[in-house]
C-alpha cells in the first residue's frame, strides 16, 4: 500500500434518497491534521460520514479510504475510528467493558483489548469512572466513551460526527483538547459541527457544506478574512456606551456606532480583525467597565450568508 494514498478521497460523489439530495457532487481529498466539516443541520455532513463509513452506497462517484471502497470492503476500518452522532450505547455495560469489547472486534485478544481500553479511557479522562455503567454517565462522559472506543485501536483516521453536540462547557473543553491532541499526533481527524466557534477552537482547516454542496474548503482564517472585509458588528455591553462610542468613532476601522439598547454599544466595521485588535486598548484607555463583547455576525449563518451571497 502506497504511503502517498490520502486517507480520504471523495470523488464527485452524489447521494440522493428518493427525491431528496443528501450530497451533491462533492470532491475532497484529506490527509493529516484536523479538518472541521462545517454546515448547518441538513447540509449533508452526516450523509458524507455515512458514505465514508460504508453504511450507505454513493449514488454517483466514488469514496476511497486508504484507497479502498468502504462499501464493498470493510478492511480500512482497521485504521479508522468512528464516533457517530447517535447517542445510543449499550447502557448496561461499563465504559471499560464497552471499549474493550468493541476493541476485540479489531482482532485484539481480551488482554490486549482491556489494556488498550484502560489506556484510551485514561486519555479521555475517564479512568476513575470506567468501571461504572454507561447508563449512569452524563452526556459529556458518554461522548468521551464513544471517542475512547474510536481510539482504542490507535487509528490513523478518526471521524467524529458532532462530538460536542449537547455537551456542557467543561466536557466541550476536554473533548476539544483531545481532538487537538490527536491532530498534533499526526493523525487525520474529521470533525463535524454546525457551530463555527467550536471548530475555530479546534482547527483552521475546514470544509463547509451547505444543502449537499461543497461550499468552501481551506484555511478558516483565509475564509474569514474575506468575511472581515464586509460590514460587521461588534456588540459591547457596558455602563457608559456614549463615552466609549466617542473613543471608537475616532478609530479608522470603525465607520459607525449605534445604541440598540440601554447600556449597549454597537460598533460597525469593515475590518473585523483590525477592530478586534484595537478593542482592548480603547477599552482600557476609556476606563469604562465592559461586561461583555459579542460578535452577532460572527457565526456560521453569517459566513454562509456571505459565501452564498458572494458566490
Amino acid at each position, binding site marked *: 500500500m502506497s504511503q502517498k494514498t490520502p486517507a480520504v478521497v471523495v470523488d464527485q460523489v452524489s447521494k440522493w434518497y428518493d427525491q431528496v439530495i443528501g450530497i451533491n457532487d462533492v470532491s475532497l481529498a484529506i490527509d493529516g491534521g484536523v479538518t472541521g466539516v462545517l454546515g448547518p443541520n441538513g447540509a449533508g455532513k452526516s450523509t458524507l460520514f455515512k458514505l465514508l463509513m*460504508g453504511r450507505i452506497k454513493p449514488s454517483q462517484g466514488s469514496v476511497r479510504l486508504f484507497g479502498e471502497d468502504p462499501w464493498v470492503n470493510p478492511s*480500512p*476500518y*482497521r485504521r479508522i475510528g*468512528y464516533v457517530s452522532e447517535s447517542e445510543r450505547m449499550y447502557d448496561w455495560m461499563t465504559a471499560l467493558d464497552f471499549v474493550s469489547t468493541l476493541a*476485540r472486534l479489531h*482482532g485484539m485478544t481480551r488482554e490486549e483489548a482491556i489494556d488498550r481500553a484502560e489506556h484510551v479511557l485514561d486519555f479521555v479522562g475517564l479512568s476513575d469512572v470506567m468501571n461504572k455503567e454507561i447508563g449512569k454517565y452524563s452526556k459529556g462522559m458518554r461522548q468521551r466513551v464513544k471517542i475512547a472506543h474510536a481510539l482504542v485501536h490507535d487509528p490513523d483516521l478518526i471521524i467524529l460526527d458532532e462530538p460536542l453536540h449537547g455537551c456542557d462547557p467543561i466536557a466541550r473543553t476536554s473533548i476539544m483538547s483531545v481532538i487537538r491532541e490527536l491532530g498534533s499526533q499526526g493523525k487525520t481527524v474529521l470533525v463535524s459541527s454546525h457551530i463555527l466557534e467550536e471548530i475555530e477552537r479546534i482547527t483552521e482547516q475546514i470544509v463547509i457544506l451547505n444543502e449537499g454542496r461543497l461550499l468552501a474548503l481551506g484555511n478558516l482564517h483565509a475564509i474569514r478574512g474575506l468575511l472581515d472585509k464586509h460590514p460587521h458588528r461588534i456588540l459591547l455591553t457596558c455602563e457608559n456606551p456614549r463615552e466609549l462610542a466617542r473613543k471608537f468613532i475616532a478609530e479608522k476601522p470603525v465607520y459607525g456606532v449605534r445604541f440598540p439598547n440601554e447600556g449597549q454599544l454597537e460598533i460597525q466595521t469593515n475590518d473585523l480583525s483590525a477592530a478586534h485588535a484595537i478593542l482592548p486598548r480603547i477599552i482600557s484607555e476609556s476606563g469604562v467597565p465592559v461586561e461583555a463583547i459579542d460578535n452577532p455576525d460572527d457565526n456560521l449563518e453569517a459566513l454562509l450568508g456571505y459565501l452564498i451571497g458572494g458566490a
Partner: protein
Amino acid sequence: MDEKGKSLAESVWTRMDRKAGAITELTIRQLRHRVSTWVVLSVGALVMILLLAFYIDGIREEFDPIDNDGDSNDWDNDGYPEGQEYKYGTSDWNGDEFPGSGYYISTGEIDWNDNNRIHSGNHTWEGTGLFDAEWIDTEYSGSRWSGIVDWNDVETCPEGEPTVDWWIDWGSACLYDDGSYFVSGKFRASGTVNAPENYYIEWGYYTDETDIEPEAPSTYIDEDGILWDGEDVSELYVASDCRIGTYDSQTVYFCDGFEVDDDGDCLIDPNDDNNNGIPCDVVWVLDSDKNEIVDIRPDNNVNEDAAESEFEGEMGHRTFIIGTGKMAFVMMLGIFIPLFLALGLIRDETENGTLHYLLSKPIHRAEFILYRLLGYLLLAGTYILVLVLIMAFVTSLIAPGDSIVRLSDYPVWLGVGFATILVLAAYGALYNTIGLIAPKYGVYFCIILGIWEFIMGLFTMTLPSATVPMLSVSHWALQLIDSVVLIAWPDTLQYTQISSAFGVESGLPFFWQPPVHTLGTQSPVVALLVSCSVLVMITLLMMAIGQSSFKNREIM
C-alpha cells in the same frame, strides 16, 4: 503507518476466533440483559418440570397385570384356580373335582353295541340303565348340573317303555313299583344294572383324596409370555433360518422361535397348532424384509399370558422420551426460542441505533451475521443441552428396568438435544433473515411459519413418508430423532410390533415410526446423516440469504 503492522489484508475474515469470540460474547450478554430471554427460557424449563411431574405420576403408577387367558379365576369355587385344575386334569366347572380330590378310574363298561347288557357289582357307575339296587350311597348325591344322581328327589317312573315312551334328565332317577330304579347319570351303589340297547354305562372307582395346596391366583397371571429381556432381537428367533411363505396374500417368512411353554401347561401331545413340527413353540411371521413382525403364532397354551407390564413400563418410558423430545423440545422450544432470541439479532441493533459500533470495525457484514448467530446458538444450545441432561438424569433414575441408571437413554436424549440445536440453528438463521428483510412485519411472518412448522411436525409423526412435510425444518429434526432412537434402542421396532400383537395400548406407534430417509438402505445411520445434512444445509442457505440481503443494506 503501515509499518505498525496494520496491513489491511489482515483484517477481514481473519483473526476470526478473536472477533467471533467478542461478538459471540457480546450477543450472549445482550440476550442475557433482555427480560424476554429469561421469560422464554423459564417457560421452557417450567414445561419440562410439568412433563417430568406427569412422567413420575405415570411411570410410578402400578401397572395392573392383565390375566390374558383368564386362568387365574376359580370358576367352580373349589379353591383352585383354573390353571392349576388344568395341570391336574380336574374339571374347572365341577366344584367336586379339584387337584387332590381323588379321581375316577374306569374298570368296565357296557357299550351301545355290546351283546351282554347286564352287569352286577359294587361300583361308581356312570351312564343310563335299569338298576336293581342292593345298596345305594345316598350321601353321593348331586344334581343335573354335576351329572350326579339326586337321590333326595326320586319320583315314580311313568307307565310305558323307558327311553321309548319317556325319558328322564341326566343326573336323576325314578322308582318302579318293584323297588328297582331307572337311572341316568353318576351314582355309587351295589346291585345289578341292565342297560337298554343303544345306551351306555361304565363303572369304576374313585382314588383316595390327597392333600394338594391350592396355588395363589396370581401364579396364573402373566405366567407365560415372551422370554425376552428387550435387549437383543436375535433372542426371539433365528432370522437366517426362516421359511418363505404367504400370509394375507403377501410374501412373508415363518421363523421358528426359541420360545417355550414357560408355565408347563402345554400338556396335550402332540400340541402343534402352528404346524411347524415342533410341539409347544412359537412361530414368528416376518415381512419380506424380515424387519417387521406381521404375526406371532404360538402353539396352544404357549405364550398365552404375556407379562404386558414389562412392555407397558418400557414402552411408556420410551414414549415419554420420544414424545417429549419431539413435541416439547423440537416443536415447542425449537420454534419459540428463535422467535424470541433470533428474530432481533440484527434488527434490534438497527432499531436501537447501535449497529454502527459493530459495523465500523474491520468485519465483513456476512462475517458479522455468522458470529451473531453463533452467539445466539451458544446460549440457546447450552440451555437445551442442560435441559436435556437434567431430563435424562431424572427419567433414567426413576425409569423401569433393572439398572439404576439407564445409560441407553442418554444417547437418545443427546440425540434429542442435537436435533433441537440443529433446529435452533435453522430457525435462528431463518428468523434472523426474516427480521432483516422485513423488520416491521417479520414477527407475524415468523408466527405463521411457526404454525406451519408445527402442523408439518404433526404430519411427519403420523405420515413420515409424505412429501409435503419434507418442506419443513421440523420434519428433518423429527426424522433425526427417529433415527437416533433406532440406533440407541434397536428393539423399539419389535416393541411396537409385539405390543400390537398382544394388544398392549401404547402411544409409541404415534410418536415413533422407523425413519424413512434411509436412501433405500434401511440403515438408521444413513437416515441420521441425511437428516443432519439437510438441517445444516437449510441453516447455511438461510444464513447466506440473510448475508446477501444484509450486505446490500444501507444503514441510516
